C-alpha cells in the first residue's frame, strides 16, 4: 500500500499538483517545510515542498516539475494510485511574522513553494507583494490562487508572453528602483534565480530568504548529502534549513553540488523513456 493520491491537477504542461492522503503530515506541516517521497520499491527518495495541508481532510498538496526520472514518473501517476512512502514534515518551518512589506518571489515551480508563505505572511498582517516568474505564459502557475492573498502581484516571463519581459530578479530590481520599499524578500526558484535575487537586494540591505534545494536522501540529518555553505559554515539543509539568509549562501557551491549526478540522471531518464509508455517519448 502506501499513500493515496486523491486528486491530481495539471498546473502547466510539465507541472502537476497532487493532493495526497497523509493525515499525520497534514496535521503538522507548516509553510516552508517539505516532504520526502519514494514512489515505489526501487525508487529514489526526493524532496518536495509542502504547498498546502488540510488537517480536516487528512491530505497534503505538493507540486512537481518534471526534471528527471522520478518527477516524470510521479507526474504520470493518476488519482487512485499510491505512492510507497511519504515522510515529513521535514525542515524548519518558515519564520512567519509581521515584517511590514514582504515580497514573495517565485520562479517556475518555486511559485508553488511560495504559495503557502504568501498566505501565511498575509495572515500575519504583512503587505504582500508577489512576483512570479516563468518561461512563458503557459508555464506560469497559480497566478489566480496567489493573487487572492496578495496586495499586489507582478509577472515576468522570459519570452515576454505575459507581464514583464525578462528575468524575475530584473522585475524586482525595477520595482525597487521605482521606489517600492520591502522589509523582507523571499525567493524560491532555480539556483541562478535565487542567486540573482540575492544580488539584487544586497546593495539595498533588504533581508532576503532563499529556500535551498540540494540533493537529499534521508532528510533527517543522517547522511550529510544535503550540505550547503552559509556564511562560511557547513549546514545540513534538511534539518538546519531549507530556508537560509540568501546573502550568506554560497550558491555557486550549491549549483556545483547539484550537478554531481548529471550523467546518472541522464541514464536513469533514458532507461525510463524506454518503458514509460507515453506517446510523446517524454
Amino acid at each position, binding site marked *: 500500500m502506501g499513500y493515496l493520491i486523491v486528486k491530481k491537477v495539471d498546473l502547466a504542461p510539465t507541472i502537476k499538483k497532487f493532493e495526497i492522503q497523509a493525515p*499525520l*503530515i497534514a496535521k*503538522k506541516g507548516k509553510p516552508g517545510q517539505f516532504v520526502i517521497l*519514494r514512489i515505489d520499491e*526501487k*525508487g*529514489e*527518495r526526493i524532496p518536495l515542498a509542502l504547498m498546502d495541508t488540510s488537517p480536516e481532510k487528512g491530505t497534503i498538496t505538493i507540486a512537481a516539475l518534471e526534471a528527471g*526520472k*522520478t518527477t516524470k514518473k510521479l507526474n504520470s501517476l493518476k488519482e487512485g494510485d499510491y505512492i*510507497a*512512502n*511519504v*515522510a*515529513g*514534515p*521535514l525542515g524548519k518551518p518558515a519564520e512567519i511574522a509581521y515584517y511590514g512589506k514582504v515580497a514573495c518571489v517565485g520562479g517556475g515551480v518555486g511559485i508553488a513553494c511560495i504559495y503557502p508563505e504568501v498566505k501565511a505572511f498575509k495572515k500575519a498582517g504583512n503587505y504582500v507583494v508577489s512576483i512570479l516568474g516563468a518561461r512563458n505564459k503557459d508555464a506560469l502557475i497559480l497566478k489566480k490562487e496567489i493573487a487572492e492573498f496578495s496586495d499586489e502581484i507582478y509577472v515576468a516571463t522570459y519570452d515576454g508572453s505575459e507581464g514583464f519581459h525578462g528575468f524575475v530578479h530584473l522585475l524586482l530590481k525595477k520595482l525597487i528602483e521605482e521606489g517600492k520599499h520591502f522589509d523582507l524578500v523571499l525567493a524560491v526558484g532555480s539556483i541562478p534565480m535565487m542567486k540573482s535575487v540575492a544580488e539584487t537586494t544586497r546593495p539595498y540591505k533588504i533581508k532576503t530568504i532563499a529556500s535551498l534545494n540540494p540533493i537529499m*536522501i*534521508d*532528510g*533527517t*540529518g*543522517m*547522511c*550529510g*548529502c544535503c*550540505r550547503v*555553505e552559509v556564511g562560511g559554515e*557547513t549546514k545540513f539543509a534538511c*534539518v538546519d534549513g531549507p530556508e537560509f539568509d540568501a546573502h550568506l549562501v554560497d550558491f555557486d*557551491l550549491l549549483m*556545483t*553540488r547539484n*550537478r*554531481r*549526478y548529471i*550523467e*546518472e*540522471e541522464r*541514464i*536513469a531518464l533514458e*532507461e525510463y523513456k524506454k518503458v514509460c509508455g507515453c506517446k510523446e517519448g517524454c
Partner: protein
Amino acid sequence: MAKIREKKVPMPEQSAEERIKNVKEVPLGYTPEMAIEEAKRCLQCKPREGKEFPPCVEGCPVNVPIPQFILAIREGRFDDAIKIIKERNSLPATTGRVCPWENHCEKACTLGKRQGYEPVAIGWLERFAADYERAKGFAIPPKPQPNGKKVAIIGSGPAGLTAAADLAKKGYDVTVFEALHEAGGVLVYGIPEFRLPKEIVKAEIEYVKSLGVKILTDVVIGKTITVDELLEEFDAIFIATGAGLPNFMNIPGENLNGIYSANEFLTRLNLMRAYEFPKYDTPIKVGERVAVIGGGNVAMDCARWARRLGKEVYIVYRRTGAEMPARKEEIERAKEEGVHFMFLTAPTRYIGDEKGWVKQMECIKFELGEPDASGRRRPVPIKGSEFIMDIDTVIVAIGQSPNPLVPQTTPKLKTTKWGTIEVDEELRTSVERIWAGGGIVRGDSTIILAMGDGRKAALSIDKYLSGQDRSWKFKAEG
C-alpha cells in the same frame, strides 16, 4: 572423553579474489556436522562463585543461555537451540554475524583461557542455529494475553527492536516509529550487504512483527509526531534513535564533489541499493582512487564496499594499526581484499578541479606521543611532513554523533554536552515514563550493547507499568 580440539572448527568462506567481485557474504556458515563438531568443544561450565551465570553468559550483554543452546546443537536438537537463544536474543542471525563476540562472550569463555586454545565459536554457532531456523521457516510463538498497556518505541535499530520484542512477549501493545522507509536502523542502512544480507535483517524484523509488534515507517518523531503527543497516547516511551549524525573534520574543501560522509556512501549502497543502478533509481558516483578517512568498523565497511566497486582503496588513519578500533577480523578481511593502509596520516585539506570535484588531498604525517585519556598514545602531527596525494573520492568515516532531532524537539529531556540523552542505571530519562538506550545514550556503540539496553529498558518499563516499582528518582531540576 576425546581430546578437545584446540582451534575452532573453521567456517568456509569465499576467497578474497572471488568475493570482491560480488556482494555476497564472506563466511558461508557451518553445516550441521561442523556445528555439532564445534559444539563438542564446549565445557558446559557452571556459574562461578557468587555469579548468576557461567562466564560466557556473563560476558554476553543480553545473557544468551550459551551452554544450553550449545548442548542442544551438540545433541542435534537444533529447534531447541534456537528456542533457547530466542528467549534472550530476538535477532540471532544478526548477532551471529556482526556481534563483536571477541569482546563479549568469547572473551569470557573458559576454554579460550587455556594455553593454546581458542574459545568456543559461540557467535558462529548462534548464526548456525538462526540460519537453520530461517531456512525451515519461523515457528510463530504463542501470543501472550494482552495486558492493555501501550508502549511507543522510537527508532527501529537493534535497541528498539529488542525492547519491542521483549515487551510484546510480555503482552504489551507495542508500536515502533521509524523515520526511514525501512526498519532496522544501522542494520539496513549502515552495515553492508556482504556482512549482513538485507534479506536476513528483513526476516528478523518479520519475526519481531510476528510477536505482534507494529512498525510504522516514514514517521519522524519530533516532526511527524512529537514526544509529548506520544506521552498522551502511550503509557511508556523508549527512545532508541541511535547515533546517526555524521561528523566531518571541517577542513578546507570538504564540501567538494566526490567527498561523502560514510553514512551517505553506505546509505546509497545499502538502503537505496545504488550498486544496482539503474535498476534501482538512486545512483552513486565513485572515482578510481578512493581514500577512506578513519580506522573503525565503519571505515572498513566503506573500504570493502569500494573494493567491490572495483576501486583502488586507501584507509587513511591518524594512529597505527594497533590502535585501530575496528574488529580484527574486519581489518584482516580488508587487507586480504587489497585495501591499502596509510597509518599515522590524516588529511589537512582537499583540492578540487575546475568542475568542483576533489582531485587531490593534502595529508600530514603523525608520530605517537604520550598516552591520552583513552590510554592510547596520542598522535602528534610532524611539522613540515605535508604531502599531496591524487585521489578522486573521499569517504569521511570519523564517527557519528547522537541524532539531535528528538532532544531538540523535547527540551525537557536532559542531555549531556555530547548530545547524548542522560539516563539512570535503569535507562530512565529525566522525564517520567520515558526511557532511552543504544546509540542515543552511548554515542558510538555496538549492536549487542544497544540490544542489551533494549532488554534492560524493557525490564524497567515492565516493572514500572506493572506497578512493581513506580519510583522515578531522576528528575530534571528546574
